[in-house]
């Protein structure tokens, strides 16, 4: 019987199976950890509490650079104070909806953006 069993199950497939299990486990770990590992790390700054609300900070920063270029009078500290008050009890999406309802719009190189988003983007550019 033992001999028969040995002949029926060779060593190579067993090892392959074990390796496959380990491989899946490793790939799974990487997949789970990838977003955290890949997430851009930003140096700490004074607007981090606000910028945490901006889901795409990199693209926001690109837009923000254009906002600042068109608003020479842009004041980061003053804007941050205003946004903190505005976003203290509401989500960014809801604040944007309120801007749209109130016609608070900013034009950035032709793009029509809600005021809150445009200013948050400008802070992202300042923090970059």
């Amino acid at each position, binding site marked *: 019987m033992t001999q028969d069993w040995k002949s029926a199950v060779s060593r190579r497939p067993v090892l392959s199976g074990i390796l496959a299990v380990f491989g899946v486990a490793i790939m799974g770990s990487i997949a789970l950890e990838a977003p955290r590992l890949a997430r851009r790390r930003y140096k700490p700054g004074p607007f981090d509490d606000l910028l945490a609300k*901006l*889901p*795409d900070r990199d*693209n*926001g920063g*690109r*837009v923000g650079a*254009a906002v600042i270029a068109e608003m020479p009078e842009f004041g980061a500290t003053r804007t941050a104070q205003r946004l903190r008050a505005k976003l203290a009890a509401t989500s*960014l*999406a809801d604040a*944007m*909806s309120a801007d*749209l*309802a109130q*016609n608070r*719009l900013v*034009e*950035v*190189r*032709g*793009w*029509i*953006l*809600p005021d809150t*988003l445009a200013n*948050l*983007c400008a802070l992202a550019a300042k923090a970059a």
Partner: protein
Amino acid sequence: MGQATSHGVGHRERLSLKAFLDARSIPAGTTLDTDLAIIGGGPAGIALALALANTPIRIVMLESGGEAFEPNTQALYAGSETGTPYLKLENSRLRYLGGSSNHWGGWCRPLDAIDFEQRSWLPHSGWPFGRAELEPYFARAQSMCEAGPFIYDDPERWTQSFGASIPLGEGGVYTTYMQFSKTRDSYLPTHFGERYGDDLKRIPNLDVVLHANVTGLQLAANAGSLDHLDVGTLQGNRFKVKPKYTVLAVGGIENARLLLASNDVMAAGVGNSYDLVGRFFADHPIPGDTATMIVFNGAIASYYQQPQPAFGAYFRAALAPHDAFKNRHAVLCSLATIEGEVQLDGLGQAAIAATATALGIDAANMRAFTVGCGMELAPDPDRRLTLTDQRDALGMPRLQLAMRISDSDFARYRDTLKELGRQLLAARTGMIRINHKSRESWLSVMDWGNHHMGTTRMHDDPRQGVVDANSQVHGIPNLYVAGSSVFPTYGASNPTLNLIALALRLSDHLKTVFKT
């Protein structure tokens, strides 16, 4: 029979075709007596003749061209242009039977109610009547344009077959619909001369005279009425037509030219006692790539980009400001069309990514479209046609156009685009980039509609209009003007359908006049 019968030309089987007359074969010195002269064989003149078919009114239609394009006749249109770059005067219209319908795009849409209203924020605005006055004529005008049933802003119909319109948040811009003159399974719209030529030949009370150029509107010595018309041909033939009544229907440029040039009794020209003839010239600016419109999910109904067939019509959607929005924000009408797809630059991609993620929207299938537009101009008395010392082959003074477009015209359209952008975002549908800000930028993408309007504007007060509410020239009881030159304000709708409705209204008035 179909269309022709519905326009008043019945009994086709019993009537033989009557050949058009040719002015070149009318003996020099002849005087043709008639009840009504229609000067011009374009859409307005032809609509009028069809509407007056089989009445006791004897009609002569005088058309400058023949039945096809002739370069020496077309050259009579040549003039000069100053100011804002504009089309060459000889290129923006056609001078043969059917007139400029021989090259029109077939776009049809009735004017909006507000287009007829006097608006406190818009100087020189206001027709002598409201849109209701034209309502009874739109269906017939639509039929003459062969644009299918008159169903325009009936979104239930249009969207049930082709998908929903673009969702917009509450606000000032909405989806409106245009219909097209192309229901004969032809790619081309209705060319009025070709389409209605045989119908005109069947009208027993009408004679069409081709190659007949009216060179003068001769007033009676007391300037109280029109006495006769001087007619000439390029071959040098000269004769007269002595009508009881005359309708001038040679387009928004030539109507003014003929009135101004007929100056031997009244030095300023016929109907020009208050220096209004030729002023208030207008066209529809058609700037290209005015904006880039993003649709986050990429879904857009086909009728936004191309005319689609449905319910016996061809229709296409445009985005227009509501009348209430126009009044609240002092904006003029515009019809924004969605055109082809475009690529975005880095800032555009970043703006969409930042905005969509902030709104919690998946924009992976996003598409970007360029936005075209037909705009309305504000009435401007200094945008005008004047006579020059130069003469054409018939000895008629040539025209000069002083073209103008104000920065506020662009600013008003920008306000509408901004509102559209707001509504797209509010509905989580998309967003917009306005592509032009400076005057130079707008002018760099400018084209024009070839829609000549305003030069013989309609107003009850002779100090503010050349013609009265019946299209009669103030002070000349037997002279009328047809066509879009009588529009005091212009809307953004293409003028053909509307000027035909006005011509049909004029035909009813003339029937009454001749009865009495």
